[in-house]
């Protein structure tokens, strides 16, 4: 093995290498948790519809498909903001963030696995908390209101 590679591997044991980002997107600075919130509401709505549908296998299949897609979309949107937007100084102030994102990933997976309204609502609650933190880092106040969707659940919105 090349001596430089060996030296680099030894150096790694004493200090971490720097990070070179090879992001899929340009850092355009345009971030908003709203897409994740809408996706979470969709997951809730699909769980509600599955609960009401009974034995109509065709309808259940359609709702389950949309639930799957939006739970994954929710995870994707949260990961992008978490990975690309949040900076170390924000994490210092919001120490719950890593745990919250981890919980969102788990809650979204659970909402996919189950047709349970409770699992979907847990996802929504945590995504709303994520939105509160996001807007706080931008110095924007937020408020909770009943969303104008058939879910009849809360949504956190910025006072812009």
């Amino acid at each position, binding site marked *: 093995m090349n001596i*430089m590679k060996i030296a680099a591997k030894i150096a*790694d044991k004493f200090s971490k*290498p*720097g*990070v*070179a980002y*090879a*992001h*899929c997107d340009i*850092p355009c600075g345009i971030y908003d948790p709203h897409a994740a919130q809408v996706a979470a509401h969709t997951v809730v709505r699909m769980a509600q519809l599955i609960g009401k549908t009974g034995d109509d296998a065709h309808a259940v299949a359609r709702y389950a498909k949309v639930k799957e897609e939006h739970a994954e979309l929710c995870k994707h949107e949260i990961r992008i903001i978490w990975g690309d937007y949040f900076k170390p100084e924000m994490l210092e102030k919001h120490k719950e963030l890593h745990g919250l994102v981890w919980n969102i990933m788990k809650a979204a997976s659970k909402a996919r696995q189950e047709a349970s309204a409770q699992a979907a609502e847990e996802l929504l609650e945590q995504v709303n908390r994520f939105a509160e933190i996001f807007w706080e880092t931008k110095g924007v106040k937020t408020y909770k209101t009943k969303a104008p969707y058939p879910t009849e659940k809360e949504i956190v919105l910025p006072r812009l």
Partner: protein
Amino acid sequence: MLKRYLVKGHSMEPAFRNGDKLLVSSLLFKLKKDDVIVFKNGNRDYLKRIKAVFGKSGFLVTGDNKGHTGSWKIARKQIKGKLLMKY
């Protein structure tokens, strides 16, 4: 001067994958089309490939993964080093 980097992201696949480790030289170096570089943008360092050189100090850089990247125009002073090898 050599610096070690850990790749995060997928825009340089298949040549460089998330989690790959790189040795980058910041010594005086010539830059040309298709060189892989690390450059600074804001508070972060990025890994991209030079697609075009404009005069002595302008570079168009992009990722290898066509479906997952955009192009940026950067200045020579933003460039922190040129890739030497993966390790």
